């Protein structure tokens, strides 16, 4: 069952029809994955008049709430170029939350296919992650325009930080989507639990408050806070975009960023990869029971 040309039957081996090699199987069937991603993009806002625009309205409205309530009303906007501080973080946070939420629901939502067709079921969480990634594009363009307008110019360390940030969220998001999409088949409670979890994410990262606040309050004991890979990803994004928009980027990086940020990012990426392997193992174990429990 691959996209390769059709061999005469006598030359094909006897195999288990259900054999799928997990995530590797997903990427060996890229054409099917592309169709699923396209389907998901068109289906996510189906029947709505504004359609794809909702993908921008949602993060933008969040941005304005944070900017106005947290920045203006509570007075956190003493941070330089506060809107960019928030927005750069919001992009990765929103990407993660979308992947986690949509990925968790992905198998249940596609049950018509899952129950009647033999295909690697990892397809659905992976497709959810790619759809969320697709929606990141335009937000990134808005961010870039805002950054350039405030005199930001790209630097090598910053760009590798941004790549690392997206790498972390892609891997971690896929791992959690895999884990929770199967769990959600067995108990639909998981999708509700995930929406609550994602609420914590927004406040557990230095998005609406600066990292220095955390360092101050915890008197430097920030190891636990920084053990959160999403917090690392957010800091990496701010290193990439926000730091360059301040008056003295070198000083900002020194004061507002934790030490060894890139190393921390690489460790977070490594931890996310380990979690992805675990998620795949759990998925393979539980997958058997998916069709009958849907």
């Amino acid at each position, binding site marked *: *069952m*691959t*996209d390769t040309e*059709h*061999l005469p*039957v*006598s030359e*094909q*081996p*006897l*195999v*288990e*029809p*259900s*054999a799928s090699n997990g995530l590797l199987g997903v990427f060996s*069937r890229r*054409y*099917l994955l592309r*169709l*699923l991603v396209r*389907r998901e993009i068109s*289906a996510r806002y*189906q029947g709505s008049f504004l359609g794809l625009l909702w993908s921008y309205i949602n993060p933008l409205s969040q941005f304005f709430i944070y900017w106005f309530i947290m920045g203006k009303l509570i007075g956190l906007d003493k941070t330089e170029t506060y809107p960019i501080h928030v927005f750069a973080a919001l992009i990765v946070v929103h990407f993660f939350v979308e992947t986690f939420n949509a990925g968790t629901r992905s198998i249940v939502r*596609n049950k*018509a*296919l*899952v*129950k*009647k*067709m*033999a*295909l690697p079921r990892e397809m659905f969480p992976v497709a959810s992650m790619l759809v969320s990634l697709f929606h990141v594009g335009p937000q990134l363009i808005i961010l870039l325009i805002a950054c350039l307008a405030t005199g930001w110019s790209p630097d090598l360390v910053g760009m590798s930080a941004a790549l690392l940030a997206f790498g972390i969220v892609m891997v971690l998001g896929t791992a959690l989507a895999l884990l929770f999409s199967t769990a959600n088949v067995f108990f639909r409670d998981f999708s509700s639990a995930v929406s609550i979890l994602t609420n914590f994410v927004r406040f557990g990262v230095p998005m609406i408050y600066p990292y220095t606040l955390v360092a101050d309050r915890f008197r430097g004991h920030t190891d636990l806070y920084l053990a959160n890979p999403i917090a690392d990803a957010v800091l990496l994004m701010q290193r990439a975009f926000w730091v360059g928009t301040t008056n003295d980027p070198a000083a900002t990086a020194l004061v507002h960023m934790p030490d060894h940020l890139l190393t921390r990012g690489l460790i977070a990426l490594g931890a996310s990869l380990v979690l992805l392997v675990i998620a795949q193992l759990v998925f393979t174990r539980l997958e*058997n029971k998916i*069709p*009958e429990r849907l």
Partner: protein
Amino acid sequence: MADYPKDVSIVVDDVTKAFTLRYHRTFKQVSVAMVKGRDLSDTFNALDHVSFTVKQGESIGLMGLNGSGKSTLLKLVNGIMKPDSGTVLTRGRIAGLIATGAGFHPQLTGRENVYLNAAVLGMGERETARKFDAIIDFAEIGRHLDAPVGNYSSGQFARLGFAVAVHVDSDIFLADEVLAVGDRPFKKKCMEKMQEIRDSGRTLFYVSHAAASVRKMCDRVIVLENGKVGFDGGVNAGIKYLKYEDENPDNDPDDMGDLDEELGADI
């Protein structure tokens, strides 16, 4: 695995598949059951130590009463499910319909579903594009092609699913009561197409309750009874085993009656 000859198409070896009947689902129900000391779950074997092998090019009629495990067996052969114990092995590409219908996405249009379904069955983009017109011609659903599949009638749904499945270059073709919802001309067309598939040397796995169509299509019958193989052998003996037929089937000289029976007025 190497000890099977080269002409074996499907191996089902000592396969068991159990399902759980669940009494209690919510937190409240589970805690009440635990307090009262009742069983939380109960399992039954949908398939119970089923074994058989199929040679390439054989056409098997899979028969049995409702709930005897026919669809479960087909799902295992198709790879949708894995057996709890035992092995299922197949050779080559598998296509077909499971439980009267295809895996279509209700929100997508017929056209989009054709591409998606073909991709799931292992066809590439070019292959689908090349066969697209033939598929649409066969399905005859006209301008409904661009309407969401969720709005289709059950007949239209089955037509499109069958049309995609028969156009895949498969080595094994599974058909699960495909003809249950089609109208008469379409049933006739499907039978012809399936005969064509059979004659081209592909393995055919045909689930039906209609004795006459099994007799026409198949050269071997497997009867499932409560998840076990009750009979495996010749077509006539298999149908007799099931008592799906009167003692003297030549009672009715009317040709139309014959055709009806052949097309599968479900008993």
